[in-house]
């Protein structure tokens, strides 16, 4: 009874909200500029903007409002201004097309910038040719959903990040498409947040750049063809589930770079066609399981500075090198993976190979020490060296092995 009363009360409040006033902006509407409409609106009112081009320099929102566009009205920053500044909690911005915000090397000018607010919603906007796209500074429980961000920056200095979050908590970044920015999504000091179902492609630097952001999750995103892939650094408690990392090419480019990460999970991701699928440095206690590594240069490069990581139940398929490392110290566990290069046998038919698999080839160690040696790859000389090394390991780390390699690939 008490519960029904509670729900009824909630509904009542919701109804009251929906009765909030609507201020229309447009050519033949009561208000000509968005600025006037915002000034007249009260707390919780809606400002509805009709189709058209609006050159309003900077729009500052200082009270809880819903700013909505009909058929994507264009707000143009004339390459000089920050288009919308949100300085109040509970603001919703929906359905705009934001173009040409200012470019500056002193300030971080963004199309939409949120200054220390709670519960701001940025929904279904189109951002084109902006410096920073959506910039959240000290935001809490904000949601950025269904936006399309497209920039055509040429150099790192001349372009900003797509979705930039700094010192935030409990953010939700859902279903955005970002391309052509410096970093697609940038997280620094952001905690307890989720990045879900975004597509970040062809950005100049990273698809996702992640630093000092503890206990976040990113799930089911696609990171494609970014300058340097995805980089996750100096963080603990990150959950990386079911993402796609594809076609990140170049020496300094990684599907996923894990630097100084601990107590995290990399599960169910697909790494395809990267120069290095995962590059791990100084990382510890990470579970890497149920991932698929296909057609990468190196599936995983794991530096000797990594500790207590568990790599299990992954599929390694047609990679040029399975594992690369830079020393003989091995403090990580490789267990129960499927390696398509495994040549062992299974006599007792328990689907687990009877001899261990050594995923590091001599030649990958040689290339690690001396990159130009790559020119000899797949020559008779190097294949012979690899074969001898397999029989009598001398240079490759002897302990880096999978004791129970699977005979058949996992169905992932």
């Amino acid at each position: 009874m008490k519960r029904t009363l509670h729900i009824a009360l909630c509904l009542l409040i919701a109804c009251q909200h929906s009765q909030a006033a609507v201020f229309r902006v447009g050519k033949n509407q009561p208000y000509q500029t968005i600025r006037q409409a915002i000034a007249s609106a009260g707390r919780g009112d809606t400002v509805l903007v009709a189709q058209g081009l609006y050159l309003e320099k900077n729009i500052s929102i200082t009270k809880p409002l819903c700013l909505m566009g009909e058929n994507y009205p264009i707000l143009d920053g004339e390459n000089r201004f920050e288009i919308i500044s949100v300085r109040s909690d509970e603001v919703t911005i929906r359905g705009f097309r934001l173009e040409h915000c200012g470019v500056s090397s002193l300030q971080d000018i963004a199309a939409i910038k949120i200054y220390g607010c709670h519960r701001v919603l940025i929904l279904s906007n189109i951002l084109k040719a902006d410096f920073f796209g959506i910039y959240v500074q000290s935001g809490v429980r904000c949601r950025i959903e269904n936006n399309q961000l497209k920039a055509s920056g040429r150099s790192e200095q001349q372009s900003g990040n797509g979705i930039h979050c700094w010192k935030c908590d409990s953010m939700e970044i859902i279903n955005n498409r970002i391309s052509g920015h410096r970093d697609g999504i940038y997280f620094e000091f952001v905690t307890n947040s989720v990045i879900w179902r975004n597509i970040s492609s062809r950005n100049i630097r990273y698809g996702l750049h992640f630093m000092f952001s503890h206990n976040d999750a990113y799930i089911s995103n696609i990171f494609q063809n970014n300058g340097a892939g995805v980089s996750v650094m100096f963080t603990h408690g990150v959950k990386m589930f079911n993402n796609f990392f594809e076609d990140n090419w170049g020496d300094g480019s990684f599907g996923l770079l894990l630097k100084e990460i601990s107590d995290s999970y990399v599960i169910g991701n697909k790494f395809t066609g990267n120069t290095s699928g995962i590059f791990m440095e100084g990382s510890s206690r990470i579970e890497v399981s149920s991932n698929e590594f296909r057609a990468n240069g190196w599936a995983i490069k794991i530096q000797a500075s990594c500790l207590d990581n568990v790599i299990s139940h992954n599929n390694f398929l047609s990679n040029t090198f399975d594992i690369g490392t830079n020393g003989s110290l091995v403090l990580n566990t490789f267990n129960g993976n499927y390696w398509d290069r495994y040549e062992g046998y299974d006599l007792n038919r328990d689907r687990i190979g009877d001899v261990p698999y050594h995923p590091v080839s001599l030649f990958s160690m040689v290339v690690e020490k001396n990159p130009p040696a790559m020119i000899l790859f797949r020559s008779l000389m190097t294949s012979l060296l690899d074969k001898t090394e397999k029989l009598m390991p001398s240079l490759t780390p002897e302990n880096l092995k999978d004791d129970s390699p699977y005979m058949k690939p996992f169905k992932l």
Partner: protein
Amino acid sequence: MNKIIKYVVTDILRNKIVLAYTAFLLAISLSVFNLEDNASKGLLSLLNIILFIVPLVCIIFSTIYIYNSAEFIELLVSQPLQRKKIWISLFSGLATSLLVAFLAGAGIPILIYAPNATGLTMVAMGCLLSIIFVSVAMLAAVTTRDKAKGIGVSVLLWLYFSLLFDGLVLFVLFQFQEYPMEKAMLVLSGFNPIDLGRILILLKMDVSALMGYTGAVFKDVFGTTSGFALALLVMVLWVVFPAWLSVRKFSKKDL
């Protein structure tokens, strides 16, 4: 000249060894493509065949053939024919028949099972390597009069190109580890047609790994059309230069 070529080609195509070579290539390529679960893995296994077996067969077979047709060559020389023409027809005949054997044995299966850029490059490289090693064999055969010695030289040459050269390159690489060696490597690779062919195939096959730093240098050179053309030109030089040298030697040779 055409008559001689025709005679050589029919003579070789009737030869049981070439038939066996064709059958062997065909058997290997078909089984490789049918056993492996995907075509790219099949191509990988074939890569070794093309880079090692094809040059080996070409160089040994050509050397032996030339020694065996010493009497035929003497007969031709006694006719009013230019020595140059006789030698070039011999070369063309050998090259054509071994090319046909390669195309029938490996070329067709590759084009059927993997008709992509990698497959095409592989077939092209196989053809070029066949001709190059016929040309090298001609040179080896004309320089030594003794048959056993000539075949020995051919085997050594094959060993050098497919194994020793790479060992030397690796040695040089580690000796000069502190220096930027990418450009030097590019030049060095031009001195071995097998390496050149392998790199051109690898650029199609293992692009991701080769896109690492040094890979990028290779990609910049060989990946561009002009670089690819340059590499092909170097390979053509590998055909022309030994052949030309052998023609000169043959013209002056006391039979």
